[in-house]
């Protein structure tokens, strides 16, 4: 099977172009391209990378692409994959942002943005809800949620500091309160 820099780039470029409206669709897209069409990895492997992609900081789609690219052809593959997934997004935004500078002052564009701004609040709420379903599993995670929320809204603590504090809290909590089933359950997911 052809695994040249160009082929890997092209494959991920295609996925990057089709990726629209949030990351929910990346899994079926990669499944169609990498598993069904190219046969580069199998379904189970892809699901594992999906889970791993969420355990690493950064953009999940980029993380997954780098994992798969690296598996296919080491550093070269990783670079090809990440460039492929990022380039369509980059070009699209440059194009839109350049055009936008010309039209943003028009009143009907402002009206559309007013409406869309409301839509965005709903999208952020939906994203929060989805994260809530995945991450709040017990009392401790619930406390972390509210602690992060309050630190951010009331005290304007930097998000990075809140993340670092939560990591420390998690490690300490698990160290003194370790439950063997936790690892097992997490692995089965």
């Amino acid at each position, binding site marked *: 099977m052809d695994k040249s820099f160009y082929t890997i780039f092209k494959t991920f470029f295609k996925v990057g172009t089709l990726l629209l409206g949030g990351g929910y669709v990346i899994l079926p897209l990669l499944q169609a391209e990498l598993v069904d069409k190219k046969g580069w990895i199998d379904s189970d492997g892809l699901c594992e990378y999906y889970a791993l992609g969420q355990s690493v900081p950064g953009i999940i789609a980029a993380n997954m692409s780098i994992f798969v690219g690296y598996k296919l052809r080491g550093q070269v593959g990783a670079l090809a994959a990440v460039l492929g997934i990022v380039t369509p997004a*980059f070009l699209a935004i*440059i194009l839109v942002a350049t055009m936008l500078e010309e039209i943003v002052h028009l009143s009907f564009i402002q009206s559309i*943005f007013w409406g869309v701004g409301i839509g*965005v609040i709903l999208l952020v709420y939906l994203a929060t809800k989805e994260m809530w379903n995945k991450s709040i599993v017990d009392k401790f995670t619930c406390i972390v949620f509210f602690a992060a*929320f309050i630190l951010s809204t009331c005290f304007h603590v930097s998000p990075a500091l809140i993340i670092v504090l939560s990591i420390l809290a998690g490690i300490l909590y698990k160290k003194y309160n370790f439950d063997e089933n936790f690892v097992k359950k997490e692995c089965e997911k």
Partner: protein
Amino acid sequence: MIYLNLFIQFFHIGLFSFGGGYATLPFLYHIAENQQWYTVKQLTDMIAISSITPGPVGVNVATFAGFMTSGILGSLVATTSVILPSYILVIIISKFLEQFETNKNVRAAIYALKPAGCGLLAAVAVDMFVNNVNLPGMILLAILFFISVKQKHDPLFYLAVSAIVGLFAGFLHLTV
């Protein structure tokens, strides 16, 4: 030096945001409040546009924020630096995959940082609501919310509905 500052800001977003494209928002929000690169209003527009353009939302919005800060070179710096931590970490993790997956501390860290990331995003949602929504906006949001509870739709659907409503609201002078 603006490019160095951009690099630092976006590298730290790439390093500390967990849980997908929207997880970068609390960081971009923090930047809007602390640097004079773009306003919170502009960030909302950027998120909307990023949701309807091809590519991962996190990459779109980083490119956009970089562009707003200092043009095409700015977007190149922002996009590269938001991806760079992923790139380095994923390659290291790929080499030690087994240790990473079963490591107790890694599991504990992920267990705790996910709800923290969720709390940060909830804070953004509340802040956007409190600062940007007038009465007609609240009615629109309530309608959208009701639709989303009834049935799950694609993000594009909500943005399309709100864009059309916005257009009519503009004619009726309800948007200010």
